[in-house]
């Protein structure tokens, strides 16, 4: 894999005075962590600066961060986004991470810089509920338009039926299971 700590340090240097911190230094993938307001600025520098030139978007992924107490209650800590960018000549890559708050998570959209960003953002909005400001088209992509809820959140509860179709199936083999013998 083409990640290196030198590229991350160069990026941190070139985006100053924006504060950026490198985490996971010793692992195979160091991440440059920035705050949610600086996402557009940092990515624009990463794309246009002649020393960096990361003009290929590999991936945008989102996660719901939670902690589980001893009783099993799920307490939400917020959301995390990860952007993976690469150079188009030798495909070396840099990884940018963002943390978002729990209530009304939102971040600026980058769909005018990269053509494929809109669909990645739509998927994260659909399945996690993160809103992308100034997006050209933010609506559900994977689930039906009348679906309620964001399934990839850790506290998502499945309903008992959807438009009349039940969401569980009666266990036809219940009579012969070990517990019922």
């Amino acid at each position, binding site marked *: 894999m083409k990640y290196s700590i030198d590229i991350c340090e160069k990026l941190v240097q070139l985006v100053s005075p924006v504060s950026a911190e490198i985490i996971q230094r010793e692992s195979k993938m160091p991440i440059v962590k920035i705050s949610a307001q600086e996402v557009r600025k940092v990515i624009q520098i990463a794309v246009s600066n002649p020393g960096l030139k990361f003009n290929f978007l590999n991936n945008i992924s989102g996660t719901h961060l939670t902690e589980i107490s001893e009783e099993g209650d799920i307490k939400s800590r917020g959301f995390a986004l990860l952007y993976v960018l690469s150079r188009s000549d030798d495909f070396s890559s840099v990884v940018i991470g963002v943390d978002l708050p729990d209530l009304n998570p939102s971040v600026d959209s980058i769909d005018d810089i990269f053509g494929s960003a809109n669909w990645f953002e739509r998927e994260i909005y659909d399945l996690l509920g993160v809103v992308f400001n100034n997006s050209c088209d933010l609506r559900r992509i994977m*689930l039906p338009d009348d679906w309620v809820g964001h399934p990839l959140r850790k506290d998502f509860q499945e309903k008992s039926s959807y*438009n009349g*179709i*039940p*969401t*569980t*199936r009666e266990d036809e083999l219940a009579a012969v299971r070990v517990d019922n013998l």
Partner: protein
Amino acid sequence: MSLYQELPDNVFITSIDDVLGWSRKHSLWWMVFGLACCSIELMHTGGPRADIERFGAAPRGTPRQSDLIIIAGTLTYKMASRLKLLYEQMAEPRYVISMGSCSNCGGLFSSAYSVVKGVDQIIPVDIYLQGCPPRPEALLEALVALQGKVQKEKFLRK
């Protein structure tokens, strides 16, 4: 004057029910409804090795021209209303083969939030075929089982 052993070998004596059943079962035209992985095995069943057309079963693209629908793959809630619409557009008598574990009962994706747990929650099914995916020979066996069912039907009576 008796007819005992008088008829030559190319004359059959049978009942009209049997003849109708025999001719109907050898021309079951099926609608291609390939959703997921089982559709690849459906394509291979129509391919050169396990040829489904030698049973008289020709693939059609539209439900208006087909007697049989083979549901090959996982059905999701978003697709479910389309399946109901297509099934209602088929003319009776119509038959359904549910191919693969995903359309039988949800299969590998039984714990998913967006998958219908079995196609029979939406339309009535005649033959359930298990496998993930079932081999082309297994699909041909399901077709032969359906042919057995069609042969026994009393087509003209109420």
